């Protein structure tokens, strides 16, 4: 059993997290990369089927269910953990490293979980371990944001668990398999639990709240793992749920609007995750083979280019110490390589031809076309335009090209960070020019060809005109020192009142009660020191106060004698 467990990719990473503290510090960063590499090899080579079962109480747990869908997600999760490991190669923070490994282990565990119980355990593991990647920033802001993140995810986990338990008590199967689109309580709870991790508005605010405040390296793992593992679960459980089509479209537009308004570079990228996941959710809602292929391919590509973008944004923060657009500007000449690598990611996410975003966006578009969903196609195109505007134009323009606002003493960016970004950019281009490499890994066989005159004409016209629009109206985009109010307002703003009612008020009440009790005890203690003073206030002897324990030795001896007599009589009657 123990040996068999080592064939589970998630166990390898969690084992890595346990072993890492025992490894000498200078070998630790290499070891960090070794574990996801082993996991990647395993994911690649494992045969299909449910490979490992174990019984727990009266249930049979399936720890390792492999099929083409879980394999492609497993591959990209392991790959991005390796890239993240290279990006974080200069870091000497053990706890951050172990939590990142365990976090990736959680994501792989969810991916290969065959039953709900296994899935839920790994789901929660992800929430707990990722919270530390926010706290590791060690600012007052990140402390609070991490706590909010953890609380929201505990709530989400609770929703999912409630759904699972209701599902089981309704006689549902323990296995993770697609659920009929019936809106009963069990399904609604499960959908909400998954939707929270997929960052579906209004349950999305944790993402844009936490990711910009995470550590530079931690954000790479976060942007890749949590939401995309939830997308995977959504593909598994809810394919073809009609409601998801419009939920996805709303997500795509919603994320775009907030990303356009954001002033923090990583907040732009965080909101753009929500927008991109909108595409995937829409495709899951369509539910046809090509749509699910499109959702999977887009999740895969999204992980690659989004982590590249987060790495580049992290490098800017590393070099300048700020992430705010109102302070950045005019740095392009000093970091040309970084600009180039970022632009590969930015053009990928915008859907420019010959980069990886294009090959999956067109697939989703094709799926929507086949299902005759014309308005979702047009609205998702609006989101594409917006994506190009905020990630492809606003962020790079105001970071690197616009007027210089602050004089920075730039720190040199470590080589390993550049290497990691280079690998990310390589994959963006690779899957963009050779999409069949990706298509052959998708859950359903496909004949889809992304490069047609139609798609090329479509994207070229859209991107060029969006650029022209940006150029003439770029001053209208917000780059002032502001924050955006989002649905986290509902738990952040009333927090002060909630604190007053549920923490400060009981606290003060207890405080008053405590003071009163102590005062009373003090008085009683004083009193019992000499009760005679109260009982016979006028009684004094030879001008001295009478003390309660002021008996003479004679009385003591007499009392002892009386007691002794009782003892003797008692013993005598016994025998």
């Amino acid at each position: 059993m123990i040996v068999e467990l080592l064939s589970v990719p998630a166990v390898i990473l969690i084992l890595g997290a346990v072993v890492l503290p025992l490894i000498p510090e200078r070998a630790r960063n290499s070891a960090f990369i070794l574990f996801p590499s082993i996991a990647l090899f395993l994911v690649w080579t494992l045969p299909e089927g449910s490979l490992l079962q174990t019984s727990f109480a009266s249930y049979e747990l399936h720890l390792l269910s492999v099929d083409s869908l879980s394999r492609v997600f497993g591959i990209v999760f392991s790959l991005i953990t390796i890239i993240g490991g290279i990006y974080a190669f200069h870091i000497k923070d053990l706890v951050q490293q172990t939590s990142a490994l365990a976090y990736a282990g959680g994501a792989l565990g969810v991916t290969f979980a065959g039953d709900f119980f296994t899935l839920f355990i790994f789901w929660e593991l992800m929430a707990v371990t990722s919270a530390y990647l926010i706290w590791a920033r060690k600012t007052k802001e990140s402390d609070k944001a991490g706590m909010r993140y953890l609380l929201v995810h505990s709530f989400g986990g609770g929703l999912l668990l409630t759904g699972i338990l209701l599902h089981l008590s309704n006689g549902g199967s323990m296995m993770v398999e697609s659920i009929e689109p019936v809106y009963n309580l069990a399904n609604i709870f499960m959908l909400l639990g998954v939707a929270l991790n997929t960052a579906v508005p209004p349950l999305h605010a944790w993402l844009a709240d936490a990711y910009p405040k995470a550590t530079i390296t931690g954000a790479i793992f976060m942007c890749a793992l949590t939401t995309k593992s939830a997308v995977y679960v959504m593909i598994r459980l809810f394919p073809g749920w009609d409601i998801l089509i419009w939920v996805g479209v709303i997500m795509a537009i919603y994320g775009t609007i907030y990303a356009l308004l954001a002033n923090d570079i990583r907040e732009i990228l965080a909101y753009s995750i929500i927008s991109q996941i909108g595409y995937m959710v829409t495709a899951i809602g369509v539910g046809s083979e090509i749509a699910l292929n499109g959702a999977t391919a887009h999740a895969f590509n999204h992980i690659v280019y989004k982590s590249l973008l987060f790495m580049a944004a992290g490098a800017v923060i590393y070099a300048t110490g700020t992430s705010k657009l109102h302070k950045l500007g005019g740095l392009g000449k000093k970091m040309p390589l970084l600009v180039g690598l970022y632009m590969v990611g930015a053009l990928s996410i915008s859907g420019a031809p010959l980069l990886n975003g294009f090959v999956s966006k067109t697939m989703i578009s094709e799926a929507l076309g086949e299902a005759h969903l014309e308005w979702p196609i047009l609205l998702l195109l609006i989101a594409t335009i917006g994506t190009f505007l905020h990630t492809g134009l606003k962020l790079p323009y105001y970071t690197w090209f616009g007027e210089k606002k602050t004089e920075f003493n730039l720190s040199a960016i470590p080589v390993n960070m550049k290497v990691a970004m280079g690998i990310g950019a390589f994959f963006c281009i690779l899957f963009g020019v050779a999409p069949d490499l990706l298509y052959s890994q998708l859950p359903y066989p496909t004949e889809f060809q992304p490069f047609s005159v139609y798609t090329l004409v479509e994207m070229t016209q859209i991107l060029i005109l969006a650029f022209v629009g940006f150029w003439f109206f770029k001053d209208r985009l917000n780059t002032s020192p502001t924050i955006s109010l989002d649905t986290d307002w509902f738990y952040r703003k009333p927090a002060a009142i909630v604190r007053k009612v549920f923490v400060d008020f009981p606290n003060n009440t207890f405080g008053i009660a405590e003071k009163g009790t102590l005062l009373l005890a003090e008085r009683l203690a004083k009193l019992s020191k000499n009760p005679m003073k109260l009982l016979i206030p006028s009684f004094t002897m030879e001008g001295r106060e009478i003390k309660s324990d002021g008996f003479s030795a004679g009385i003591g001896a007499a009392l002892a004698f009386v007691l002794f007599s009782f003892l003797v009589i008692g013993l005598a009657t016994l025998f």
Partner: protein
Amino acid sequence: MKNWHWIVLGILLIVSLILEFTYLADYASHWWNHVPAFYAIWGGLGCLALIFVTKGLGKIFILSDEDYYDR
């Protein structure tokens, strides 16, 4: 933006329009394919709509001071 940047963009746009009118004239999978240069129009209008709608929304209620939650 230097002049040659604009020229490259212009050429790309013209090439895409030529391709559209020569290869795709009878492409009828969507209703909007009957509108010439539809994607260029959609791209331009979409861009303007996004810029001004977000600006409006930001002004009305979304954007706030950085210390909003600390007050």
